[in-house]
């Protein structure tokens, strides 16, 4: 068992555990903090997948900006009524468990089986991280240059549309939360 394997197991169990805690906790502030931990674990998983740039972007965008926004909004709300997280009832609870298990099983099984289909189409895909590392991942600085080259040639239209989206979204957010008379108006 190489170190990357141990690291993968630790990080993936952390991310699944914190993800489950996000859904199961009844206090929304604790949910958001568990989500931050889950995002950081996922950034670690990106590191084991030899994508440090994506890991850095994950920390900056998700854990450092989006979730700060979530936590700020939750602290503004000050939700006092902490009722139970899920609706009551034994039969509905049982149905929820069964449904959850079925969904999980379907997706995990489908993911597991699909890999053998992909392997059947191409023989040179390495099947574990250590073997893939030996065949030579491209080093980091090259891959960032390559990503940006692709971004500006093959995906240029999508990139520009994304810029337009990032222009429209703050305008929309400001328009949604506008108070009649401006920020300094007297209510």
């Amino acid at each position, binding site marked *: 068992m190489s170190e990357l394997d141990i690291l993968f197991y630790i990080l993936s169990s952390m991310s699944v555990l914190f993800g489950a805690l996000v859904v199961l906790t009844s206090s929304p502030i604790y949910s958001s903090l568990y989500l931050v931990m889950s995002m950081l674990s996922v950034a670690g998983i990106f590191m084991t997948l030899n994508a*440090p740039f994506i890991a850095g972007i994950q*920390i900056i965008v998700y854990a450092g*900006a989006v979730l*700060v926004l979530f936590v*700020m909004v939750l*602290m*503004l709300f000050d939700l006092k009524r902490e009722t139970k997280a899920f609706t009551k009832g034994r039969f509905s609870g049982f149905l929820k468990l069964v449904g959850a298990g079925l969904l999980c099983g379907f997706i995990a099984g489908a993911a597991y089986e699909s890999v053998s289909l992909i392997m059947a189409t191409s023989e040179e895909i390495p099947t574990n991280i250590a073997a893939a590392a030996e065949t030579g991942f491209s080093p*980091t*600085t090259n891959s*960032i240059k390559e990503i940006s080259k692709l971004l500006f040639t093959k995906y240029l239209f999508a990139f520009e549309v994304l810029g337009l989206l990032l222009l429209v979204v703050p305008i929309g957010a400001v328009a949604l939360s506008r108070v009649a008379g401006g920020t300094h108006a007297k209510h």
Partner: protein
Amino acid sequence: MGSDVFEISINFVKMVAIFLLMVNLVPMLVWVERRGSAFIQNRFGPNRVGPLGLIQLAADAIKFLFKEEFIPPKGNKALFLIAPIIALIPGAIAFCSIPLSVPIEISAFEMFGSQWGPYVFPFQSFEIGIGIVFVLGVSSLGAYSMLLAGFGSANKYSLYGALRASAQMISYELAMGLAIVGILIVYGTFDFAEMIAAQQGPLSIPLFEADHVVNKVLGILPNWGVFYQPVGFILLFVSVFAETNRLPFDLPEAESELVAGYHTEYGGIKMNMFYIGEYGHMMVASALIAVFYFGGYSLGTTLDTILVEGTIVPNMSALFASLLNLFGSGWEQSTNLINVVRAFVFHGIFMAKILLFLWIFVWVRWTLPRFRYDQLMDLGWKTMLPWALANTILTAFLMLFLR
């Protein structure tokens, strides 16, 4: 971590040493702040406890350790206790990933009867190929300590201070990121060591030849980033003031406004941890400014070769060789010793630059009045963001035409 015992142990010692360097620089900074502010305000600072008042900080630390542990009864105990720890961690991790000096190259040597191979030790705790992206990401995690501290204390003023402080922090991260993008366009790499290497040599404009009189005049100056990106330098410099909640941007901590902001309810060692976090962020910011705009640990090629390589390094290594000759023999010819001394001399130069910027932080704090909160947010969004965007576009155009 390394291939054999020697390398692993040296790496471990290096990690601990750099972390302790950051933590131990904080009392020095607090002393500089208290004496420096006194000097600016024409009074004495602490000067009784020990020579020049240097032991005052040790006395303060001991006093903090013995204070009563107070947790607000209505507050959220877990969040209240976690917040100071989260304040410490981002500054420490970010400081550990910035190279503080040249890598130390140790050629093969023999000790305890076995051969230890050639090593290269980078002068940082860990080396990540993405450099600045990691530092930016980890610094933005500092917003959580303020939010959790403000929420965990059951106090309206703390909550307001926390929300204001974190909103200010994420607003100025934009201008900071765009200023850094300008530098990335100029140097074309994320890695700190490559950026420092690209700042060697004399300054020159590529449009003229090397013998042109403009290039000869400019050649006196070193090839530092501040001459390529002056607007970016000003933007980054102002943004890090807002990021670390220092005056003139420290309304969330102002006493007349919000008692003490998000750390109102903290006392004792937990309050000290907030200050260590703030000074840690200041150190990271100073290190970033030194690396991007002022050549990092090098002084420019001519001064490097004349001063450092020519005089300081041989003299100091001769001194250490004569000291070590008491224990063994033959240390004068050891290139390993020269490499180690060279790394530490460059490290001294880097620390001098960092200390200069930290003094400028202290100087500005006690000179300027503070901004009102809406003026602060207006400055961040309506002034600095358009200037940063214009800087990025202009830099991109210039790089396109000059290549």
